[in-house]
């Protein structure tokens, strides 16, 4: 083992002083560095984006929706924080040529009725973005058009007083009404929104609700099912990018392969001398595999360290503001990047696997097979 350690160290150090070996070695190191760095950063961004979108959904949307009333009280169902009746419909804001679709929501836990002094005016909490775009402020009035199935025109205009402004997580402007007022303007079916302590146990909670309310079968849905297509698309996107970027590591491995091959050919006479001096074939093989692996490891090491540092920097700083990137469409704040241990381990293992193969194959192929030819003038 002393021999392996001694020669590996000496060969490794000599590579950086040998003019012919230095450049190919640097190319191997840089190629592994770039591929590991890129793969880690891209996967961390994908993971960060998915997590931020998921958190936003969990923060602003119900975790379970019931489209019918339960027979039994939901208070004794585990994992439920709160539940409330809700209505949802759509209206339109028209100002000259301007037409804007507006979501109308009502929740029983929103109480804006206390200061209502005119039954023909509806009081609502309105999205901040909508107010800014239309130069409206708190206590201003504006009009919207809503569907009216009971009237001849099937459409009617209502007046809204802005009671408060709210940060909107939805992609379109939203107005929240008190439940009692909303019943007069939203004609959709009433549903129940449930918030959970642990949204990731929504399936178990659904089962608990169904145990007590068998009639709700097919009328209960959780946030995971509602957003399954979105999460599947994000997973597919992540997977395809991961596979595509893995090819970078594959290409980098070919540079290690060729670098190892050229190193062995250049050291042929030294290998022959080692054999004449009595070195074991396996030990010589181990030396060249380790030298090649160590070179690649340098690239991996710096690639992973830099990716980790950059991930932490991007996650901490308000880089979105500095770079003026518009992510309002997704409703997320800050740069969507997060350090993921699982991705780090998977990418590290994959890189180690590839560089091990790239180091072992040429060494094994040229030394294990042809090593006797190096010292024997001819073989029977």
């Amino acid at each position, binding site marked *: 083992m002393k*021999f392996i350690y001694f020669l590996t160290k000496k060969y490794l150090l000599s590579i950086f002083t040998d003019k012919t070996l230095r450049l190919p070695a640097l190319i191997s190191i840089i190629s592994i560095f770039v591929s590991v760095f890129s793969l880690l950063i891209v996967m961390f961004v994908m993971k960060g984006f998915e997590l931020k979108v998921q958190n936003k959904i969990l923060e602003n949307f119900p975790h379970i929706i019931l489209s019918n009333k339960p027979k039994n009280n939901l208070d004794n169902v585990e994992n439920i924080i709160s539940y409330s009746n809700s209505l949802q419909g759509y209206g339109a804001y028209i100002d000259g040529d301007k037409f804007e679709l507006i979501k109308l929501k009502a929740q029983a836990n929103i109480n804006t009725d206390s200061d209502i002094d005119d039954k023909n005016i509806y009081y609502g909490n309105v999205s901040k973005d909508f107010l800014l775009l239309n130069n409206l402020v708190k206590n201003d009035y504006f009009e919207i058009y809503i569907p009216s199935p009971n009237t001849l025109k099937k459409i009617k205009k209502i007046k809204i007083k802005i009671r408060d402004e709210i940060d909107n997580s939805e992609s379109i402007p939203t107005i929240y009404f008190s439940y009692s007022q909303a019943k007069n303007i939203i004609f959709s079916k009433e549903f129940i929104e449930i918030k959970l302590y642990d949204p990731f146990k929504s399936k178990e909670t659904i089962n608990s609700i169904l145990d007590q309310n068998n009639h709700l079968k097919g009328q209960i849905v959780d946030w995971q099912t509602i957003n399954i297509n979105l999460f599947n698309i994000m997973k597919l996107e992540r997977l395809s990018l991961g596979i595509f970027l893995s090819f970078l590591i594959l290409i980098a491995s070919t540079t290690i392969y060729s670098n190892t091959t050229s190193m062995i050919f250049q050291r042929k006479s030294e290998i022959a001398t080692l054999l004449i001096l009595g070195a074991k074939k396996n030990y010589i093989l181990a030396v060249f595999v380790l030298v090649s692996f160590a070179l690649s490891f340098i690239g991996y090491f710096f690639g992973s360290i830099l990716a980790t540092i950059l991930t932490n920097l991007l996650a901490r700083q308000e880089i979105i503001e500095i770079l003026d990137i518009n992510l309002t469409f997704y409703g997320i704040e800050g740069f969507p990047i997060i350090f993921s241990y699982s991705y780090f381990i998977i990418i590290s293992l994959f890189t180690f696997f590839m560089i091990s193969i790239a180091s072992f194959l040429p060494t094994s192929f040229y030394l294990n097979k042809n090593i006797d030819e190096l010292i024997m003038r001819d073989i029977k």
Partner: protein
Amino acid sequence: MISLKNVTKKYNNYDLISYNDLIINKGDFISIVGPSGSGKSTLIDLIAKLNTCSSGIIKIFDKSINTYDDKRSIQLFRKVIGIMSSTSSLFSMLNISDNILLPLIIHNEDICNSNFEHIVEKLNIKNLLDKSSGDLSSGERQRVLLARAMVLKPKILIADEPTANLDLDNTKKLVNFLRYLNDELKTTIIVATHDDIVSKSSKRIYELEK
């Protein structure tokens, strides 16, 4: 110690070298001489197990050379036979000291059990120890190769043209050292050479014809 019986070596299926039977005893100093192409280096390679004979038997320590085939015995073989072959080279990334000590590292031996200090002094290469192999002259290089072959105190030294490219002064120094190894350390020496100074210094001459 070493014996050759009916040994032949066939090249390209028609060039045949036949060797007369030969017995080398412990403490011998034998020079293999002959014109170029007579098979001097081939014989050295056959004895050093760097080549295989086409027919006949070569015995070393009363055992056929073919029995030194498994990993352990081949390693032991290389340990007890010091080889200064034409294929030997010095390692450019090691200094001269590490080059000489390399067999100790390979065989996991302690420097205390070696000839290092003694050989370095005898070959007058102490001043070269920190140098790189690229900084050596031909004479210095041959002396370093000889030091490396002898560092493990081998029982047999096999050298192929040890004085090639050396001037008269360096040749004499190297020959004196070979004589010292043979006389004082009782090392059995087999040398392939075309140099009269070397052959005249040996105890026996084995002559080959083309």
